């Protein structure tokens, strides 16, 4: 019984959201407002059950981890935004989050996006026994990386043989990469659409198995 109601609700709201493809309409608006409101309510409960309760309240009151009161109070400072006279206090948790975020992010970014990428580009073009297509791949990768880096030079005019031609090749390489990514992602999206159609045709209408 409840399953059937769930399937009907899911199917009708799917159609309500898809109705946007025709134009913005009251049915879509109803679905939009419901999904925004319900998702927010759901997330509040989820965060309470997965963060506030097990990581703050239980350790403080159940495990005597009194130091956790400090981050708890820091978090509560966000609520001061509702009181204009002391709203400035909410800047402390913001500053803390931004500072720690940057501090943690910097070495990770340096490692993942600079050093590991550099390491992947420091390879020989050819070594004995390497098949020709691998050699070609290495050539494209090394020269493509150099050309793309030239494109992202902001303090030099893109003119002349090095910066002019280099950046032109660079943007071609970037666009070719984006083309491949586009195709790959579209394939993923099509599978999502197929999944939804299967839900409508199978679970709801029972037209397909």
């Amino acid at each position, binding site marked *: 019984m409840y399953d059937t109601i769930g399937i009907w609700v899911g199917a009708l709201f799917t159609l309500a959201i898809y109705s*946007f493809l025709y*134009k*913005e309409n009251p049915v*879509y*608006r109803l679905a*939009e407002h419901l*999904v*925004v409101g319900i*998702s*927010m309510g*759901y*997330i509040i409960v989820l965060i309470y059950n997965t963060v506030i309760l097990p990581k703050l309240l239980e350790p403080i009151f159940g495990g005597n981890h009194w130091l956790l009161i400090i981050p708890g109070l820091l978090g509560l400072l*966000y609520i001061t*935004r509702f009181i204009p006279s002391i709203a400035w206090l*909410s*800047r402390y948790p*913001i500053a803390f*989050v*931004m500072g*720690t*975020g*940057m501090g*943690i*992010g*910097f*070495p990770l*970014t*340096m*490692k993942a996006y*600079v*050093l590991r990428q*550099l*390491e992947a*580009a*420091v*390879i*020989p*073009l*050819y*070594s004995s026994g390497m098949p020709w297509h691998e050699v070609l791949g290495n050539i494209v990768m*090394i020269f493509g990386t*150099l050309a793309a*880096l*030239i494109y*992202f*030079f*902001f*303090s*030099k*005019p*893109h003119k002349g043989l090095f910066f002019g031609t280099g950046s032109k090749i660079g943007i071609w390489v*970037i*666009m070719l*990469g*984006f*083309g491949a*990514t*586009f195709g790959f*992602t579209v394939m993923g*999206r099509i599978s999502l659409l197929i999944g939804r159609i299967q839900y409508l045709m199978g679970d709801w209408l029972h037209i397909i198995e």
Partner: protein
Amino acid sequence: MRKNWIGIPAIMILLLLPSLSVAQGDDEILTPVDDNLSATVADNSVTPDETELRPAAGEQLEEPDPGLDIPGIVTVQNKPNDAGDQLIVSFEPAVNSEGIVTYNIYRHIAEEEGEDTWNLVKIVLAINPPEFIDGYDPEYPIEPGVLYEYRVASVNADGDEFFGPVCTAEVVSKGEWFHTDKTRVLIAGLLFILLIFYYFGKAQRGTKMYLRPIAGIEAIDEAIGRATEMGKPILYVPGISTISDVATIASITILGRVAKKIAEYQTRLIVPNYDPIVYTVAEEVVKQAYLEAGRPDSYDPDSVFFMTQSQFAYVAGVNGIMMRDKPATNFYLGMFYAESLILAETGSLSGAIQIAGTDAVTQLPFFITTCDYTLIGEELYAASAYLGHEPKQIGAVKGQDACKAIIMSLITLALVLGILDLVANTHTLNWLRDLVTVSIVE
């Protein structure tokens, strides 16, 4: 003496009885009496007292598992370069691995007593090396300075456990102040920071620095002007990532510049937010921008608002705004995921001029195909310097260019060394690879 001679054949007959009974056919089978079989059963030293004859019940019964060989002692080492929350645990696997599927490793604090104090901290497949790093499971963390005891059980396909000895760890976990595997990251980071500060200082001293034009950034002013002329609002979407994301920070900086211009032009701004912390920062930035523009009274507290933290609910809400309020200009700057195409496609349908910018490689193609201008990757980071025309920020962009020049030089050097190795049969490229290689797992 005579009694002994009589006893020998009697014992032999008793020993032979079980094998004779098996040889007679499938009707009877030997079943050990004792359920708790030990290794003594496996080594064929079964005595007649330990077995009994039991008739089969119609079908052939399999010989029950005679028990598994147990693992040996457990060795524990302190893991270097950690915060004192990990231990390297290794154990001697069972000599006879027959029938063993996994090893279950249990741990408890050395002073604790009772069977329920043991926590299963790792399951190691029998085919894998008999070691692991303990402390990864947040359910059972390793506390620095605490002495632990370990025991390992051999586990068969039915899940029966046969425990080895309880071993007390020789060491306790200890944290280090410096992660030696990250030295290269530190050096690279310091080098890059120094370069940026060098150009930063240079710009502050008044050195003129060139920045090449970027179409997407130059179009921002034009897009704000268009919205003002049309009397329609401007929609600014700061992405759906957290404030720690570099793209979000770049987006918030650009929002400040854009909001200042909007305040000057007296145009309406709409900033729906996905993340509550980004929302609070965005609100502060917009408020500050209106103040800097000399129009604090024009600031509308409802212009920056929190929508929801559910990805597609957020998209549905923003799409609704696009179709109802019909903004003349849409900015999508920050970190985006699967929602990028839905947002940009709806914006395109609503007839807005669209400027997007992200460093999400998988989403950039969608923005490129649906938006009028797209800031690709680092162009987004540089945008705030372009918009502000502040010498300090332009210096920072110049510093980043110098960092890119170093990376390009290293790749070119690798190319030359690779060719040299090929021609002269040397191994110079390995030296460079070692120089730039950083460990994957820390």
